[in-house]
């Protein structure tokens, strides 16, 4: 007994963390089962409103090779629709927010001109736009526009903050070395802003995934995981509904992880790790 205790005490922090991770997941699954049983006990006639994890898992497995009953197409297709929308919305927001943020951070004229417009749009949650965008941009691009809005502001404001806080002496040094205004912009301001940009990207991606699901609830027949979840819920196919939710969680974790990897790679390249 004592030996085991000693062995436990000697374990490095990293191993403890692994054990805690496994314990945490097991705890989660346990609670899930408990809730599932409890809802079934409460109303044995209707059955469980929260399907147990194994049922969701087998439904997920089934959906991999079968068209789902509610929407009649493969889960994959919904997934790709959502991924495509998130990617497009993100790419458009990135492409527009980066130069705008740099400009607004470095030029008081640009900021004076753009800030009021930005402040008009900012307090309106992106999701409030979903119906309007559905009308304007139709079923595919409507949700893309919602994602765009969700991603745009975090990137814009972070880049603006970064561009504004560029170390004054770095610009002075560049100028005494012969840098023109354009050089200062591309070789000093832009690299200085990268860490801020990365923060904006990470935050923006998270918001993007929140936006896409809700926007797809609204744009019903446009497909996507949001629509998949809603449709299966309408038909009472709860295991499928939960499988869709799990898939969105997985995708969100994966893309955020990818952004993190990208971020680390950029820092390594820039020698700032």
């Amino acid at each position, binding site marked *: 007994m004592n030996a085991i205790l000693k062995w436990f005490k000697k374990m490095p922090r990293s191993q403890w963390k692994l054990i805690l991770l496994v314990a945490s997941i097991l705890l989660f699954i346990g609670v899930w089962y408990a809730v599932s049983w409890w809802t079934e006990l409460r109303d044995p006639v209707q059955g469980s409103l929260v399907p147990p994890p194994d049922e969701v898992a087998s439904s997920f497995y089934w959906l991999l090779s079968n068209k789902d009953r509610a929407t009649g197409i493969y889960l994959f297709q919904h997934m790709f629709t959502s991924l495509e929308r998130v990617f497009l919305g993100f790419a458009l927001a990135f492409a527009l927010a980066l130069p705008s943020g740099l400009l607004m951070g470095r030029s008081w004229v640009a900021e004076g001109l753009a800030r009021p417009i930005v402040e008009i749009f900012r307090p309106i949650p992106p999701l409030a736009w979903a119906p309007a965008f559905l009308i304007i941009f139709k079923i595919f691009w409507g949700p893309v526009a919602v994602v765009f809005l969700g991603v745009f502001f975090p990137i814009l404001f972070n880049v603006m903050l970064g561009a504004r806080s560029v*170390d004054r*002496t*770095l610009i*002075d*040094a*560049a*100028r*005494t*070395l*012969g*840098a*023109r205004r354009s*050089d200062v912009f591309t*070789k*000093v301001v832009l*690299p*200085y802003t*990268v860490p801020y940009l990365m923060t904006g990207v990470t935050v923006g991606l998270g918001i993007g995934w929140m936006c896409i699901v809700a926007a797809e609830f609204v744009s019903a027949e446009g497909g996507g995981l949001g629509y998949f979840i809603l449709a299966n819920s309408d038909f009472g196919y709860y295991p499928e509904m939960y499988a869709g939710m799990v898939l969105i969680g997985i995708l969100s974790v994966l893309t955020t992880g990818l952004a993190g990897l990208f971020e680390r790679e950029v820092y390594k390249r*820039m*020698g*700032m790790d």
Partner: protein
Amino acid sequence: MIISVKDLRKVFTKERREVVALDGFDLEVLESEFVCLLGPSGCGKTTVLRIIAGLESKTSGQVLVHGKEVASSRPRVGMVFQEFALFPWRSSKKNVEFGLEVRHVPRDGRSKVADKYLDLVGLSGFAEAHPHELSGGMKQRVAIARALANEPEVLLMDEPFGSLDAQTRNLMQRELLRIWAATRKTVLFVTHSVDEAVFLADRIVVMTARPGKERESIEVLLPRPRDRTSPEFIAVRSRVLSELDEEFEKARARELSHSPEVKNNA
């Protein structure tokens, strides 16, 4: 004459208050001369340097580098800052190459010049290191190499060793003299350390309290390497110190008599 400043005046406006930083400032620096600019804080030493570097506009007067008015075209001066001002995302070598890069020197040429100057400052082994991996003294070596790589006629140094510890500071002073001897650049060096000025300079220009102008120009005729403990060194030191003390007292008296004035770090 490589630097010629005549009747320079600089007025800052901060919060609607005008502060005369420099008034009637004259300075002449000869080719290959090592001049230290010394004065109480707030006397406008740094402002002089920044105007010569083209980083700050003058209110009136004439500032010539090699007979040409500065501020217009790209000035042929290099500048070294107290805060090192290295680009943290660039390696030492890439930092040194910066000036050549913006002047569109081809890659091979850049690399060669950067290697040469990194070698001169004794950092050949740290070409690929990034600033965060370097000590303060090494960072300032990179900054000096970066300024020199542009082959400027004048090297402006704004309290470059001000943030280094005493030992490193002394070492860097000796190193700077070695580099100066090797390149024969004209150096205009701002400091508030009397000891540093006497150790380094051919000539020390003591400035008055604000508005700054030249109070005294003192030739330091001691042979190099200078011994900080020698009676001759100490004699020059005490002379400079007494000049400076008077200005310091003046500045302090004014600060006490006036209502709090807008401060600027120049």
